[in-house]
């Protein structure tokens, strides 16, 4: 509200209308005569009814604040009438504005009781406000257009690089805790699925088998006696023995005894198994 919109500013007046196919469309239709075939061009050149309205005001070097509603409405209607004949669908928004102008005009022409006059606002006020705001925004649009634009005025600079070859493929990390948790979850799952007792029995031998294989993984050769832990009692020894038999049966380990009554050794089966040809 601080910036009064000045009417007779030739600089501003020449700016807004823009170009129709390269031709400046400024004061050309001075007498409002528009050749019918040019109408479409003119329609294209206005970005809307406010644009046209502003053009008409500026062309007459009139002040928006003191909007001379009668001549402007008349001129505006002449434009709209022509549009109606030719390009009705394009003119829809213009018709709304025409109706608004007509309403303001009629309200201004009608005499009003003096009491009402004080309270009621100038019927032009809302239109004036919108025109002022529109004019400000058109100024903003102008500024935007003048700002340096990427791809028009400046270009982003890039350099090639050989650095992509140094990108390492990172593999997911796991912690021991996660591994242990996953194991207990897998077991819990198994508990739900298998009959309790059968499961237990089966696991104990298999667990012992794994332990023997584990031991053989660390050391190629174990004394037979090392496979048994006396503290486990008879049952433990039996489980260990069953595990050894199972492993032998599955041809995972060899049992070696050089001489009769000499120490029995358990060895890992041929390491050839580790090779893909196995």
């Amino acid at each position, binding site marked *: 509200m*601080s910036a009064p919109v000045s009417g007779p500013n030739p600089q501003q007046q020449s700016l807004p209308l823009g170009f129709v196919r390269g031709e400046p469309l400024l004061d050309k239709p001075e007498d409002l005569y528009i050749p019918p075939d040019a109408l479409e061009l003119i329609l294209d050149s206005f970005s*809307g009814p406010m644009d046209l309205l502003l053009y008409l005001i500026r062309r007459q070097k009139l002040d928006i604040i003191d909007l001379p509603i009668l001549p402007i409405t008349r001129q505006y209607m002449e434009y709209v009438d022509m549009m109606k004949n030719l390009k009705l669908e394009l003119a829809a*928004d213009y018709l709304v504005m025409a109706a608004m102008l007509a309403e303001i005009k009629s309200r201004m022409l009608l005499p009003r009781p003096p009491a009402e006059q004080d309270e009621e606002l100038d019927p032009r006020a809302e239109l004036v406000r*919108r025109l002022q705001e529109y004019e400000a925004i058109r100024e903003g*649009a102008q500024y935007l257009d003048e700002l*340096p634009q990427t791809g028009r005025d*400046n*270009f982003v*600079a890039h*350099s090639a690089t050989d650095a992509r070859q140094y990108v390492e493929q990172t593999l997911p990390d796991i912690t021991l805790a996660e591994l242990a948790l996953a194991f207990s979850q897998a077991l819990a799952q198994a508990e739900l699925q298998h009959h309790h007792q059968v499961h237990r029995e089966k696991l104990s031998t298999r667990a012992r088998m794994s332990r023997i294989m584990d031991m053989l993984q660390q050391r190629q050769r174990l004394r037979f006696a090392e496979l048994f832990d006396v503290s486990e009692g008879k049952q433990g020894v039996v489980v260990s023995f069953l595990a050894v038999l199972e492993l032998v049966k599955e041809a995972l380990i060899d049992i070696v005894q050089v001489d009769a009554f000499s120490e029995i050794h358990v060895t890992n089966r041929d390491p050839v198994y580790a090779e893909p040809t196995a």
Partner: protein
Amino acid sequence: MKSMLRTGILFMQNQQLKQIVEAILFVAEQPLSETQLLEHLQDQKVSRKQLSAILDEIAADYQERGVQLQQVASGYRFQTRPELGGIISRLWQEKPPRYSQALLETLALIAYRQPITRGDIEEIRGVSVSSQMMKTLLERNWVKVVGHREVPGRPQLYATTAEFLDYFSLQDLSELPAIPAPAEKAKDTGQTTQTTAETATATE
């Protein structure tokens, strides 16, 4: 002697840091903020202050060159000197896009009066805003929906994005040239005007 050596090492370090920052900015696909640069320089143990000084030095080095260091909303990037735009754009067959008056006005309304609804835009421009135009602005990532106005229909509120500022080589909205403040609505109080202006500043 010792201090000379130390100065030498510092110089080396500084030069190498400059090289790194420069190289990273030239290969990054997007502008990089100081924070992003610091992240990439974790191993080099660079302070924000040091980085600022390096960026200043680089900017000075490129002052008279064909490309320059430019700070935009989302960070730093190298871009060509503005006055070379004409020559460089000729490298490409296609002409740079020219935006219609209608699109520029819509964009200006969103930029200067954000957050704003499509209804607000239509009221000021006196014309219905086509869905195609809003789609263009959204697809270009210049504009985004930041919320809804709590009135019947809950219309979407639009605001501009960092990409919008980047495109126009702006750091923030306050760099937009000022335009007259919106006049108060005939029936409303002056409150409206002030709120709108404040919100616009606070948004980015």
